[in-house]
């Protein structure tokens, strides 16, 4: 059974739980990674090897699509343990 992060915090005894949606920033960061790594592809391929490089780029690209499809989100949670 899926449990929300908020409910996990509450179950663990945290109170005053606040959440800020940071999904837009997450999307921007993911897109920035794809671009920054792409511009340095020759050097980074040399570091990681072609297979690892392509797997990482593919993973980030799929994650970007998942964010746009509403399947991935990012929140900043803050809570207090009494």
């Amino acid at each position, binding site marked *: 059974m899926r449990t929300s992060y908020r409910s996990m915090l509450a179950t663990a005894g945290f109170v005053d739980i606040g959440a800020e949606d*940071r999904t837009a920033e997450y999307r921007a*960061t993911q897109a920035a*990674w794809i671009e*920054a790594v792409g511009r340095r592809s020759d*050097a*980074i391929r040399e*570091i990681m090897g072609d297979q690892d490089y392509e797997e990482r780029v593919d993973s980030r690209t799929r994650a970007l699509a998942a964010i746009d499809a509403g399947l*991935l989100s*990012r929140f900043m949670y803050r809570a207090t343990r009494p």
Partner: protein
Amino acid sequence: MGSISAEHDDDFRDRYVRSGAPALIEAELEVLGSDYRANGYTTMGQADDLGRAIGLQIGDRLLDIGSGCGWPGLHLAARHGCAVVGIDPVREGGDVAAARAARDGMADRHAVVTGNGDELPFRSASFDAVVHTDVTC
């Protein structure tokens, strides 16, 4: 000591070892604004928001779960004057973090434990604040 899988740990071990390459640091600076060998999604601005949100102060003791190579825990400790303990299942990340702490003159305010967030090896109420970023992604 818990771990997701040996393959997962090997993958992160490789990442941590290679993460100091100039091209990767350049990309990190451009994307996150940090140079701690990170490759996640916590930007410098978000790390600073986090530090303010939890009210870190000089002398506090912070736990960074899934600390990797030290981002953002080391940055938060440097910014707020607190101590930080990192915990990560892959030792190599902690080695990188310890070297960075020493380079930044913060070795006396930094410690790292190889371990898993499911089985924290600390006494209750050992920390003033706990953070974890880019762990559940």
